[in-house]
């Protein structure tokens, strides 16, 4: 599985949505991605890539696209 597939899958499974719906998705745009869902998403991504994000990055993780930039900091290339 590519990193992009893993990344997308974390969104799909956490929020129970399709890969199609992840495109351009932003924090709070769907009811599942609220502050509770956010922490679940972070946990899912940390498991998937075996990383631990800094608190500031958790706060800045505001969209599907922004998350890719943030993961790059942890040497996870999701392009």
């Amino acid at each position, binding site marked *: 599985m590519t990193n992009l597939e893993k990344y997308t899958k974390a969104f799909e499974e956490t929020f129970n949505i399709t890969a199609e719906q992840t495109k351009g998705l932003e924090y*709070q745009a769907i009811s599942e991605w609220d502050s509770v869902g956010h922490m679940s998403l972070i946990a899912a991504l940390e498991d998937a890539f075996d990383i631990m994000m800094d608190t500031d990055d958790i*706060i800045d993780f505001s969209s599907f696209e922004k998350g890719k930039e943030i993961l790059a900091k942890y040497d996870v290339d999701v392009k």
Partner: protein
Amino acid sequence: MINYDEILKLSPFSLGKDEKQKFLTESLLSLTQHHYNNCETYKNMMYAINFDAKKVNSYYDIPFIPVSLFKELELRSINKDEIFKVMTSSGTTGQSVSKIYLDRKTASYQQKTLVNIVSQFTGSARLPMLIIDSPSVIKNRAMFSARGAGILGFSIFGKDKTYALNDDMSINVSAIEQFLEKHKNEKILLFGFTFMIWQHFYKELLKLDKKFDLSNGILIHGGGWKKLVSEAVSHNEFKNRLESLCGLNDIHDYYGMVEQTGCVYMACEHGHLHASVFSDVITRDAIDLSPCEFGKPGIVQVVSVLPESYPGHSLLTEDEGVILGEDDCPCGRLGKYFKINGRLKNAEIRGCSDTYASKF
């Protein structure tokens, strides 16, 4: 306008009295002006008291509004379509709740400020986290209480989050055992509300004659002492009992409220609550509302540089407190340090721990 990205580079306990006074006066005056221009109700209030910004020499002169006003009025300085989140206060059944309107910007800086302050105590690494509450608190997302918001806000400091209580508030011994086994020899973070910890954790462990080794733990707790005061449990006794039962010796109480989320006041190792550079406390005389001298109990006023989406930068609370000193706490942190005596008489019961405890 305030440049929050710049401000948040400040170390939270790094400014001495004069510097902090200058910083807060400038920031809070600019917020007063901002809310005057953007919140009609606030403007009317300032108009009614003949507020004149030119007469402000220090942030002590900036008007405060009673915290209860957020229950009665829709106070916001943003348009309806900019509302990102509405936070509500804890309140017992039948009480009206405060409504705090946040836009994305204010919500994000609240969270960043919380991180800035609390990481001074927990360290910057996220720690395995044991939450002394039941998972049901954050299950009902539509009715998000201050208790759930507190848990969520603090859960950013944790990883591998585990709940120590079941949905019916009974203690989940096996979950705790598994958690401790998994994180043996690691520093762990424990978080909860004071009364829940006392009633459902400490007392239950005593009853079950069960001991856990939590000597690697740091406990952060808050939400009100009212019920414990009535059971005659002091801060010291709370600490001592937890230490003797589970070796927990790094315990920090905090004071904060949903109306000024982000600016928490953390207790240091000497048990003193500390104001960070982002906020301050002033105690006021109950009769004429003039500032009290240090050491004299008064009504607590809180100011914070964070509230931009709602006019909550200067609030008179319903708590009584005492300022113990400024810049000279033995822990070395600069700024005022204080203690909270409790709620003013006849004030409503609130606080995440207290509203829950009123059922007992």
